């Protein structure tokens, strides 16, 4: 280790610390500790003169460790690290003792607070002995991006990146671009044509040489880390086995979308048995064909639209699929405009009109004289075939909540607003790219509020409905957000990897593999040939889970080593 020369600086913080903790007592005790060559007390250590003091002492006294007893490290660790760096000392050779937020500000007894401050300072001095100079690493950032899924989210993201001049591999499982949006006629609430929305995207896409479209293709393997992924994609071009291509990308955007709920699972609705009970997607097809009609070819006199099919239900999926209420209202509009004499009945639980323009849309829907019937959550209207004497094809019984009555309404055509659910291959996709899915199969974001498009695996982003049911504006927003994040990374050129990460000692690792599954970032990989695990520094976030769990003690948590922590324990208990 060489000769340790520790400098201890006790901040008074004006009177913030000094009015309860006696800084001189702390300074005097610190000065007596082994290897402490200088201990000072000063009014404001974070001020320029305070920092200059540290810099000067490093240069003139040859300090190789610095302890600052002051405010919380969350406040000024960066400041004092910068001061050390300016003095020529590695910034990781500095530690702080929190004698303000966690001492002078919370205790009234001067004697005990000072004793505590002394203990905390001693702990910091003990720790700093074991701290090591750490340097960050840099890695390359490949400017290519892999986009999985060519729905509205995938297309938007691909275009965003390609227009900025970056290469994109757009991988689509089916033989067509457009995803679920290609199956839709008009979109709510402004009744734009989905085809127009998509056509605009697709034209730009075709013109752009940066985008390589791979249809009938699936991701087979992804390895590496942010900036340095290797992706293998298999394309089904009629021959078996599928043709595989491997290429490098820096980032991945997962935009694999959703699939609709299978309406036949709700037996009360007779989907699959009653010919004129159809799903929303089937109705969209009808709209595109230009004719709204029953199976027998007649224009329906009574149309019922049932909300929350497979959603908000204890039996199927508990969540709300977000888009269906407004889509149902869209249908009411379209039916009324195509068949002005028809009666449209909207059978719903709640009307979720949360977005821009949606409440207005709701209002105008009632103005076109749609009948609204409310039913209870976890109940189901029952659809049955009508008798020949009834003037309609089917009858729907509903326990109507607002009137409190059980009503029966006629229906020639019933549209089931099927909810969104995770695709059956969602878990496989998640596994391939090392992200997680929640209990409903939706991919999990890095932080639900503050980081909705990133995931816990650096370099893997999620956009659109694969993360949770959402509408087009939100899907597009997320796609652009993910693209934006990636462009920012590419602009930086290189990845800076913080010097604090876990390290496996290859001489001590026995290959027990206790660690590999513990890492939420998949940063600790097992090398089957060497029979050892190792950490990918770029992927490691330094949480320390593997360090604590390793039964051989073969993993070192840089800057938070066992030795340092045990030294702190000794320091506070001395």
């Amino acid at each position, binding site marked *: 280790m060489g000769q340790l020369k520790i400098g201890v600086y006790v901040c008074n913080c004006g009177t913030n610390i000094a009015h309860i903790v006696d800084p001189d007592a702390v300074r005097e005790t610190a000065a007596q500790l082994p290897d402490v060559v200088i201990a000072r007390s000063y009014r404001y250590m974070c001020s320029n003169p305070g920092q200059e003091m540290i810099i000067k002492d490093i240069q003139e006294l040859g300090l190789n460790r610095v302890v600052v007893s002051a405010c*919380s*490290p*969350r406040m000024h660790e960066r400041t004092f690290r910068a001061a050390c760096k300016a003095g020529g000392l590695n910034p990781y050779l500095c530690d702080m003792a*929190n004698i*303000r*937020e*966690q*001492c002078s*500000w*919370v*205790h*009234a*007894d001067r004697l*005990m*607070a000072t*004793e*505590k401050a002394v*203990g*905390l300072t001693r*702990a910091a001095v003990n720790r700093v002995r074991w701290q090591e100079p750490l340097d960050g690493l840099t890695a390359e950032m490949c400017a290519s991006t892999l986009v999985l899924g060519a729905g509205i989210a995938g297309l938007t993201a691909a275009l965003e990146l390609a227009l900025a001049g970056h290469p994109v591999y757009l991988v689509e499982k089916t033989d067509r671009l457009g995803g679920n949006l290609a199956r839709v006629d008009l979109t709510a609430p402004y009744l734009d044509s989905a085809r127009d929305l998509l056509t605009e995207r697709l034209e730009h896409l075709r013109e752009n040489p940066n985008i390589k479209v791979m249809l009938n293709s699936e991701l087979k393997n992804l390895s590496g880390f942010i900036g340095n992924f290797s992706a293998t994609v298999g394309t089904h071009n009629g021959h078996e086995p599928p043709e595989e291509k491997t290429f490098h990308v820096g980032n991945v955007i997962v935009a694999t979308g959703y699939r609709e709920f299978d309406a036949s699972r709700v037996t009360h609705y007779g989907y699959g048995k009653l010919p004129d009970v159809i799903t929303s997607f089937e109705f969209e097809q009808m709209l595109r064909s230009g004719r709204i009609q029953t199976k027998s070819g007649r224009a329906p006199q009574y149309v019922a639209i049932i909300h929350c099919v497979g959603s908000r239900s204890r039996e199927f999926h508990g969540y709300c699929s977000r888009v269906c209420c407004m889509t149902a209202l869209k249908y009411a509009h379209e039916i009324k405009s195509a068949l002005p004499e028809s009666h449209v009945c909207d059978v719903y639980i709640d009307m979720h009109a949360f977005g821009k323009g949606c409440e207005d849309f709701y209002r105008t829907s009632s103005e076109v004289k749609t009948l609204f019937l409310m039913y209870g959550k976890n109940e189901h209207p029952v659809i049955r075939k009508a008798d020949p004497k009834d003037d309609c094809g089917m009858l729907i019984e509903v326990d109507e909540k607002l009137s409190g009555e059980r009503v029966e309404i006629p229906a020639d055509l019933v549209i089931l607003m099927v909810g969104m659910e995770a695709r059956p291959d969602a878990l496989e996709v998640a596994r391939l790219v090392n992200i*997680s899915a929640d209990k409903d199969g939706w991919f999990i974001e890095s932080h639900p509020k503050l980081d909705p498009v990133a995931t*816990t695996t650096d370099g893997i982003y999620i956009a659109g409905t694969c993360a949770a049911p959402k509408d087009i504006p939100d899907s597009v927003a997320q796609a652009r957000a993910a693209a934006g994040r990636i462009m920012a990374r590419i602009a930086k050129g290189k990845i800076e990897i913080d010097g604090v990460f876990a390290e496996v000692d290859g001489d001590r690792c026995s290959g027990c593999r206790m660690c590999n599954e*513990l890492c*939420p970032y998949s940063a600790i990989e097992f090398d089957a040939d060497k029979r050892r695990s190792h950490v990918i520094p770029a992927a490691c*976030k*330094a*949480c*320390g*889970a593997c*360090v*604590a*769990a390793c039964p051989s003690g073969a993993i070192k*948590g840089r800057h*938070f080593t*066992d030795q340092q*922590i*045990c030294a*702190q*324990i*000794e320091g*506070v*208990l001395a």
Partner: protein
Amino acid sequence: MSYEPKIVGFLCNWCSYTGADLAGTSRIQYPPNIRIIRVMCSARIDPTFVVDALAKGADGVLICGCHPGDCHYSEGNYKAMRRFPLLKKLLQSYGVEDDRVRQTWVSASEGQRFADVVTDMTERVRALGPSRIHAALLADQRER
């Protein structure tokens, strides 16, 4: 003669340590018996630290992490959640009283809660009397 308990606290940087700082900025008072050691995540807390603290003279050990589901590192606190009951079982075999070692969840916004937890724990540990582990281990070296 009353003694002053010495409690070692292991707090995770993102939630509980920040919560403790918030208690500070809010000037919420609590007993000065606790000495806090910062780790990045409660998952870093090796049960070895807990027994080490007890062996070195701690009268109590407090572990704080983020509430389940809120861990900054996604699942770190679940590791802490799994280790703790088994550690408790072990400590029971060693005859360490239940109230001496505690694990709880404190979020970044729970300054008052942190102060309450520390106050409660300090009183419980005070009621138990000093831990004689450290002294006993030293005595073992001299007396047979």
